[in-house]
């Protein structure tokens, strides 16, 4: 059984809140996704603070492809495929570090930090000097840009500029990158682990699924504060026509109220309010920047869902702190994030249980693949003209509008031959 691209609209009936789980397991859908989606969308690479000095690099992935992000001598940032032009071997196998050049350990072709080919062994006697090194640099991304220190890239030269791609999402991103004058930095140490499931399950959860927390995380979040069962926290949801989603909870500063972090956050609030207004002060929750960057402002967490096959993905999880915060506050943030997030985190380990089993069922099943999943929560209860928040807004923390929007956008990427530009006329969406 294999899905044709022409059939995808039947599998993704976002406007009715019906999604076929075949899009989470089908091999052909996955192969197409690597090109049509990950080959065209703007993807998050790294934050400025992870590669501060010339020669600093961070090894990551864009979809299925290994990519090196490197700080240049002039302070700019470049990103290119971590694959030698000769036989496609990785030219750098360290996950991060500082380098003057990268030498492929197969035949010795060497590239400088900009990706240019600078040395080919036996160029004169074996190649007869017939190789034009200028033409054989590492494959650069088509476009690279940053939003307030967050670096993104796309392999599609026809993709619109990053700021247009992010759209209204920047209003929400600002609440965790530009809330204080000094901005943010990423703490050392990326927590990476593996889920046998489809990456979209995680991306959609972070876009809009606050609903799962009271049950999935009953043994962790449910034990913090006054408990959550049955009580929907005060909040709202944002859906972007560009596929992004943000779910907001108001009024809970920090998960724990007895450490230097919560004292710092409380003292910081007036500064944030001054910069962003009260609507984005203490705004916590969860978000997804389409397609595979997500985060949890309450836990100062940022992550990427790296696809590794239709039924496997890796979570790369980063911790964010205010750059100018005192050391003891950064330490408290590190300890707090270590406790709750990551492979061993008391919150996160219960997500792994769900996502793995869902993947296992789809891998083995036939009837279970034919069963549409229900994405109908809050259908028809969103507004386009909220007085405070831009985008399409659901007035409660629980809802599946962001998920429906995510799959609507996903479908557009998967079925469009050209880069699927969001028509300005349809900017506000037409979900009914």
């Amino acid at each position: 059984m294999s899905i044709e691209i022409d059939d995808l609209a039947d599998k993704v009936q976002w406007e009715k809140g019906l999604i076929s789980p075949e899009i989470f397991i089908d091999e052909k859908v996955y192969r197409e996704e690597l090109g049509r989606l990950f080959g065209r969308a703007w993807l998050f690479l790294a934050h400025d603070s992870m590669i501060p000095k010339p020669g600093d690099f961070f090894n990551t992935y864009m979809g299925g492809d290994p990519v090196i992000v490197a700080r240049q001598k002039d302070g700019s940032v470049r990103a290119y495929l971590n694959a030698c032009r000769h036989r496609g071997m990785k030219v750098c196998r360290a996950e991060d570090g500082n380098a003057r050049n990268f030498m492929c350990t197969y035949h010795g072709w060497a590239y400088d930090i900009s990706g240019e080919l600078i040395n080919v062994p036996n160029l004169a006697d074996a190649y007869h000097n017939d190789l034009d090194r200028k033409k054989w640099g590492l494959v650069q991304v088509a476009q690279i840009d940053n939003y307030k220190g967050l670096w993104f890239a796309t392999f599609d030269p026809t993709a619109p500029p990053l700021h247009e791609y992010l759209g209204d999402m920047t209003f929400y991103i600002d609440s965790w990158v530009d809330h204080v004058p000094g901005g943010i930095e990423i703490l050392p140490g990326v927590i990476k682990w593996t889920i046998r499931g489809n990456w979209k399950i995680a991306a959609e959860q972070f876009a809009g699924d606050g609903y799962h927390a009271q049950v999935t995380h009953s043994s962790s979040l449910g034990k913090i504060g006054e408990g959550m069962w049955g009580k929907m926290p005060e909040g709202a949801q944002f859906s972007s026509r560009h596929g992004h989603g943000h779910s907001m909870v108001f009024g809970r500063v920090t998960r724990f109220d007895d450490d230097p972090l919560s004292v710092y956050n409380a003292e910081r609030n007036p500064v944030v309010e001054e910069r962003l207004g009260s609507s984005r002060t203490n705004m916590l929750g969860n978000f997804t920047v389409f397609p595979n960057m997500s985060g949890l402002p309450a836990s100062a967490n940022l992550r990427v869902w790296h696809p590794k096959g239709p039924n496997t993905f890796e979570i790369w999880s980063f911790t964010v702190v205010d750059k100018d915060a005192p050391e003891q506050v950064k330490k408290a943030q590190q300890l707090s994030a270590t406790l709750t997030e990551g492979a061993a985190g008391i919150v996160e380990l219960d997500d792994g249980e769900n996502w793995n089993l869902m993947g296992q069922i789809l891998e083995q099943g036939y009837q279970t693949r034919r069963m549409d999943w229900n994405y109908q929560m809050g259908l028809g209860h969103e507004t386009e003209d909220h007085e405070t928040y831009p985008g399409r807004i659901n007035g409660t923390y629980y809802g599946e509008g962001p998920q429906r929007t995510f799959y609507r956008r996903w479908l557009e990427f998967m079925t469009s031959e050209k880069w699927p530009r969001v028509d300005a006329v349809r900017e506000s969406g037409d979900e009914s």
Partner: protein
Amino acid sequence: MTTQVEAELTAFTAATQELQFRIEQFYYYEAELLDEWKYHAWYDLFSTDSHYRLPVRRNRLRRQRFADEAAARGIEMAHFDADMKTLKLYVNQRESGSNWAEDPPSRTRHLITNVRIRSSADEAGSYDVRSNFLVYRNRLEAEVDLWAGERYDRLRPTDDGSFQIADRVVLLDQNVVLSKNLSVFF
């Protein structure tokens, strides 16, 4: 002239052999508690001033790697970084009745080997003990995980002839954790 190995062998006296035996027995008891899901009893093996840390293993070039991977490197994310107040939160979660990742509980086997004991230079009367582990997890119908690694412990003798774990650093031999979670203790 005796070689280094011979010198170390001759240093094994009846007393050091007995110490080796007692520490290994302590580890086997600890493994039993974990494999039988007696988390609170396991927690009680730690001293109140203890710390439990499981750092991230990094892939770095040889010249840029960390000489001592068990050493703390300032503020850095880790899989576990817990004082005893925090470790209690993990233990309480396992026994909460709604920690779905371990309910039904996984079947685990903690195999402890290569126990190497040195008198602690930092804490008189205590021992700095390194041991290797292999932890097998079998979960629900057919899920299997295997973790290998090393533990750096500070063991503090107790009045009743046993030990307390006064510090533990776990080096898990994985960069990308290959399992869906780390809902086990090492």
